[in-house]
């Protein structure tokens, strides 16, 4: 059974169809990259997986259960912007998920439990290379650091699915490459299933194990909003675990 099962999903807004008849099955540990023209409904699709937007028609199942239309802890997310909390320090941002889990009433932990949480958060910050900025506020970080913080904050609660909406769209190319290797490593280490939207086709090809192209199969030139987009291509690509080991072997020799 596949982890994510999208069956004949439609999304319409008044006067326009955004997505039509989207079908997709994704297994655990896959790294799915999503490309498509601007405005074709990629973010809408991601927000449906998130539970923030409800399909008008069709079913989304995760691990065999129908998706509750509400964001849940099994699906972490990083947006292009606004993913971190400006009023919390870097450490505070990463602690938040742990504190939510630990204290239902105050949403805050104290004493020994807090020290344990801080240890975990610091280990996570170290993993993404932000430990030295732990006491800074997000506004004092660069764009790339903010996105790494957003990753750390999301991953601390151990989601099984990671949803990324153009997370590196605003970063310059050098930093983007660093982020690629980070995401690729985290994907492998934590056994995540990743969905990542990107505008950068080469990113789509190199980073993922599977590339989805969203496009409109039918287009009425007089009424472009009449038909919606769907998955027109579904390709196995670059970063496949089986290929990875081959590449590593090549590097060694």
């Amino acid at each position, binding site marked *: 059974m596949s982890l994510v099962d999208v069956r004949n999903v439609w999304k319409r807004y008044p006067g326009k169809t955004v997505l039509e008849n989207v079908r997709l099955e994704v297994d655990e540990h896959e790294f799915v990259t999503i490309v498509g023209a601007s405005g074709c409904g990629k973010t809408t699709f991601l927000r449906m997986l*998130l539970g*923030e937007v409800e399909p008008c028609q069709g079913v989304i199942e995760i691990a065999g259960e129908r998706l509750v239309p*509400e*964001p*849940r*802890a099994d*699906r*972490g*997310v990083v*947006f292009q*912007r*606004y*993913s*971190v*909390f*400006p*009023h*919390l320090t870097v450490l505070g941002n990463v602690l*938040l*998920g742990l*504190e*939510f*889990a630990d204290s*239902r*009433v*105050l*949403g*805050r932990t104290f004493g020994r439990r807090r020290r344990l949480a801080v240890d975990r958060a610091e280990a996570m910050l170290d993993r993404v290379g932000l430990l030295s900025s732990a006491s800074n*506020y*997000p*506004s*004092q970080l660069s764009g790339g650091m903010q996105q790494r913080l*957003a990753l750390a*904050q*999301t991953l601390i*609660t151990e*989601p099984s699915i990671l949803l990324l909406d153009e997370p590196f769209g605003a970063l310059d190319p050098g930093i983007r490459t660093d982020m690629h290797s980070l995401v690729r490593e985290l994907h492998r280490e934590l056994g995540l299933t990743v969905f990542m939207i990107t505008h950068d086709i080469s990113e789509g090809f190199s980073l993922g194990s599977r590339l989805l192209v969203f496009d409109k199969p039918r287009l009425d030139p007089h009424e472009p909003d009449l038909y919606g987009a769907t998955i027109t291509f579904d390709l196995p690509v670059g970063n496949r675990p089986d290929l990875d080991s081959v590449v590593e072997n090549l590097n060694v020799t």
Partner: protein
Amino acid sequence: MRLLNRRPGNIGVVASAATPFVLALVVYVAASGVRLAENPDDKLLPSLVTVGEAIERVALTPDRRTGDYILWTDTAASLKRLFIGVGLAAAVGLAVGVPNGLLPWFGAFFSPWVRAMSMIPPLAILPILFIVFGIGELAKVMLIVLGTAPFLMRDIEQRVRELPREQLVKAQTLDGTTWQITLRVVLPQVLPRLVDGVRLSLGSAWLFLIAAEAIASTDGLGYRIFLVRRYLSMDVILPYVVWITLLAFLLDFALRRVNRRCFPWYGV
């Protein structure tokens, strides 16, 4: 260099800021001198000496009847009303504005109501307040609350709605409950905005305070101004007005400091 690129230096900033104040004082002294030369009993523009004597009378000499220093007891009475009134309004603003902005069902019930209530001119219902609450402290405080709370409720509601949708989604993916998200994500971000809202509403709070004191009171800065008006005592009214202005300025300054000190992440 273009005019829009020329800036005053450090000394220039202070000097430019002080100039209009000094000028106003000079104009006043000159005008007062002219009028007093014509009629030494003129009350409209008392000389600085007369004003100084009046200040000494109200601020530094105990009142013959009560033994109080009038300016200080007036100030204490007024500030107490102002603080209680604005404090209550801020609490109400938070308690109604946050759920109005965050919870669709709550907002559906109360948001239109708040909008309608905020259209009532508070001074128009001042007589009702006096009838309902008597002419004691409560009515005066209530006028300030009713005068400033609607603005604060709407302002806070708006600020909560302005929080990026992404943040609330993110907090939910971290498994936060509505209550936890309110407590850890919404409230801390709204507090500095509340302080800003309070700063903005202090102006009308003073207005309602002075209006209420003018109509029904036995002490307070507004009461005093309207009392001595009967004797055309400009020598008392003018320092009182300056004093009220100074208090208002200091309050605004203090609140700005509070924001910078308590919420270092805000507005950077």
